[in-house]
């Protein structure tokens, strides 16, 4: 291999998002993420952090700028967006498990339909992932029979089943009862340790400090601060960030 691999797996350049109602959700947001890096995005609600995360797999279209995943322009009309999305796992605030399928079937569905894996292969991989997120005993339960924390762990397993190179987390613990936050964060921590590239939107400052390689602060659609966790939390220089941290810590 003589070809040099670009260390940046996600490159967002001057991303603009204006909703049809005129709301300017993202204002020229630029950010890049290296392979294996964990980036945590924080900010007050309505700051555009979830919107920004969703532009990274085009669940949200962009009005201007450019997003590249692994060198491929998402906005290019020739890009097969389904192929990109298969490589970018996403975990939602409200889990969004498929309620008509058991936990294991949730995990197996996309590998079988998108990756065209056989049932046996998908089943074996699915069981392995259910074991990994600590739900081997509950894999034949329907989502309605699982607690919030368990559902979110199934959702993580479902995303991992596609063997993605990037994982996006959109406030994964915000809908959980406090006692269940830990079990989900533990799974995410072990993923980070394995070297998964992760972009995490969260309000869990402890997680940001402990796991993140970089922390990003967004406010009113702008990327305000991008720092290492130590400098971010211990010596914030930006006044807007100081105010925000004063409110949440």
């Amino acid at each position, binding site marked *: 291999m003589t070809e040099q691999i670009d260390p940046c797996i996600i490159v967002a350049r001057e991303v603009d998002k204006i909703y049809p109602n005129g709301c300017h959700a993202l204002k020229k947001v630029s950010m890049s993420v290296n392979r294996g890096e964990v980036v945590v995005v924080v900010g007050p609600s309505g700051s555009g952090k979830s919107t920004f995360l969703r532009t990274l797999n085009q669940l949200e279209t962009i009005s201007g700028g450019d997003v590249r995943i692994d060198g491929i322009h998402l906005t290019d009309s020739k890009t097969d967006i*389904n192929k990109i999305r*298969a490589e*970018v796992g*996403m975990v*939602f605030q*409200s889990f*969004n498990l498929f309620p008509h399928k058991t936990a294991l079937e949730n995990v197996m569905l996309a590998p079988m339909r*998108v990756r065209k894996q056989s049932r046996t292969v998908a089943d074996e991989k699915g069981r392995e992932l259910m074991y990994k997120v600590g739900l081997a005993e509950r894999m034949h339960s329907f989502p309605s029979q699982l607690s919030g924390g368990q559902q979110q762990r199934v959702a993580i397993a479902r995303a991992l089943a*596609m063997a993605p190179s990037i994982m996006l987390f959109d406030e994964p613990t915000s809908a959980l009862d406090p006692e269940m936050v830990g079990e989900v964060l533990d799974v995410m921590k072990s993923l980070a340790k394995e070297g998964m590239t992760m972009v995490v939107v969260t309000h869990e400052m402890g997680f940001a400090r402990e796991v993140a390689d970089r922390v990003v602060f967004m406010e009113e659609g702008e990327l305000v601060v991008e720092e290492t966790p130590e400098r971010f939390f211990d010596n914030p220089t930006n006044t807007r960030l100081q105010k925000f941290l004063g409110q949440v810590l």
Partner: protein
Amino acid sequence: MDKQYNQAFWNTVFVLIMITIGIGVYMSSKSIDYTWRWERIPQYLINTEPQEVLAPFDGVIEIAADDKTLTVVADSGEDPFVISTYDLRDVEDGDIVFEGDPIAGIEGWQIGPITWGLVMTLKISMISLVFAMLIGLFTGLARISANPAVRNLAISYIELVRGTPLLVQIFIFYFFIGTVLDLDRFTAGVAALSVFTGAYIAEIIRSGIQSIHPGQMEAARSLGMNYVQAMVYVILPQAFKRTLPPMAGQFINLIKDSSLVSVISITDLSKAGREVVNSTFAPFEVWFTVALLYLVLTGGLSWMVQKLEKRLAASD
């Protein structure tokens, strides 16, 4: 808290009211001097009368010695007419018969006209149901399409069909479209019923799909599924389950609406009823029987849908 009712007492009240209604019906028939002739009805369901064999031409009867074969020798020199199995014999050896005279009877049973009507109603409803589901599914999906041409076509179809009476549509299908495309009356009837019911099913399916949380579509798409895969594996199974109750109502309407195809001379249950009334002069008995048979069809259908609903409730 809901008020607690005395179950035994109020159930008795229910039964008493039903009995009163029954007596009311009986009394009102008495007041118009109606003579009930229920015994005339069964033969129109299953006919056990021996079937008459008529002489095909003028001739002379010859009966074999063992009384197993009956032959009509034609006066005109045509080939003789032979019956080798009969259960009743109306003629003797050497009798002279004329064309159309009854000569023998064959025992056995046949399906009566009302039963044939029932079979026709069932057949036309089931075939229409399949087509209506297909039309409804595609129109329902078109109705929520982002493409304005597709969406407006679907809306126009739905509004056009829902805004005109089924009876008028059946006439249009039979007399206009049927003539242009050279359709027989059965096909025209099925087409009219399918197109009519399809419009209602489309709206049911649309509302079912829209009732599914948008996060389901996002989750499916975020896993790399395309729109069709997400629809087929994620959205539609959930929408189908949610729309079962209104869908069952629509299916029952379809069975009942199928009675209107009798206007283009399809002998369904209703038309068979009308014909039998003409030959029995027992309208009350016939129409009660026909109503009961419709009730059996629709009741059976709702029972099956309820079973299905229970089975699908496993993931709730």
